[in-house]
């Protein structure tokens, strides 16, 4: 890394990308710089963010990009709002697919819906309506037990036309998976 400003740019990018605490050790290994140097740059960067809505918190081990305490009230309002607003049709549609087809990979949900489901899935996750199984190589989505209970069901196969619908969708995936990557 030739220039200090460049190094700082990389550190900012890393902190945003990771979105969680990042150790100086990790920063130094990514950027091939000294650990103390990483720490020094972080401290300098933190100065640059004084008075902004984004700030850098750090201790002796790690640093994180966070929202400033000054805006905490608005952020908690936002959080609350996220959980209380009505679900969009896209979210309800996605939920119905996971109900009938879960556990299911995101790519399959996208394929069935014909649109990208990245953000709708996120909204369902945040509300505890679905969960992601990280154990499998491809993350698989399933509805939570809470959702099943909320629907008044004991098991998912009590859903209307459960087998037929599952079969029809499976058939669609099978028939089209060859040209899915066009």
């Amino acid at each position, binding site marked *: 890394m030739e220039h200090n400003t460049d190094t700082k740019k990389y550190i900012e*990018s890393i902190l*945003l*990308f*990771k*979105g*969680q605490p990042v150790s100086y050790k990790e920063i130094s290994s990514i950027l091939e710089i000294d650990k103390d140097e990483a720490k020094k740059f972080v401290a300098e960067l933190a100065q640059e963010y004084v008075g902004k809505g984004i700030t850098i918190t750090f201790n002796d081990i790690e640093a994180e990009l966070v929202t400033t305490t000054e805006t905490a009230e608005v952020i908690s309002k936002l*959080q609350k709002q996220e*959980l*209380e607003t*009505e*679900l969009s*049709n896209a979210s*309800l*549609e996605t*939920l*119905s*697919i996971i*109900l*009938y087809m879960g556990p299911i990979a995101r790519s399959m949900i996208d394929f*069935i*819906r*014909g649109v990208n489901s990245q953000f709708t899935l*996120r909204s369902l*996750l*945040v*509300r*505890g*309506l679905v969960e992601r199984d990280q154990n499998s190589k491809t993350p698989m989505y399933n509805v*939570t037990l*809470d*959702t099943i209970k*909320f*629907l*008044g*069901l004991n098991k998912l196969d009590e*859903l*209307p*036309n459960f087998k037929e*619908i599952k079969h*029809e*969708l499976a058939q*669609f995936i099978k*028939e*089209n998976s060859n040209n899915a990557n066009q």
Partner: protein
Amino acid sequence: MSTDFSVSTKVFEGPLSLLLDLIEKRKLLINEISLSQVTNDFLEFVSILEQKDLYKITDFLSIASTLILIKSKSLLPQLDLNPEETTEIEDLELRLKLLQIIRRASKDVKDLFGKKPQFSRLHIKKQIITFSPTQQIDVLKMKWFIDQVLHHLPKTEKKPEKRVTKTISLEEMMNKVINRVRQNMTISFKTLSKEHKEKKNVIISFLAILELVKLGNVDANQHSTFEDILVETKEPSIPSYGA
């Protein structure tokens, strides 16, 4: 005349893309003159498609018929086009011009796409998840939504078992015209076109005649606009017009 295009790629990209390639390869501007110049190349390409029996040929045939119109007009200036046909030709030029601008611009898109992307935040702050359903979620509603999903699944694109209509190829047409001319020495265009109910085939037969006129194999006479065109052989023996 060379058709050094990869057929499958071009079929996928469509007839306008092909047509634009043909024009740009000759470094021509998009206008009726250049379109009439590349018509033969285009038709030859369509005949290759036809041989391979590719189902996307319908897209190509509709453009082919417009090109034939343009070519007919260039070979026979007294030919009157109806407003619908004029629009068709103007549209074709417009479409090509738009596509040409887009294609040039798409080079920038291609050069930048995915090369140095920006990245989103990977992890979102872990919050304690509290189950937050809404009254929108019940079994019937879910069933309604999954039915919508099923309803909107795209229908699998199947190769049509039979084409909508069997269209006669240009070459077939040429040979037919030659045979007819040979038999009768003089035939009228109306007689010739009566054999074909499809407008497209009439146009193809018409073009075939014009092509023969240009090659010097036959004479075509039309005494005035709207009047029938008479076709007659110039030579007693006509070389077979094959591929």
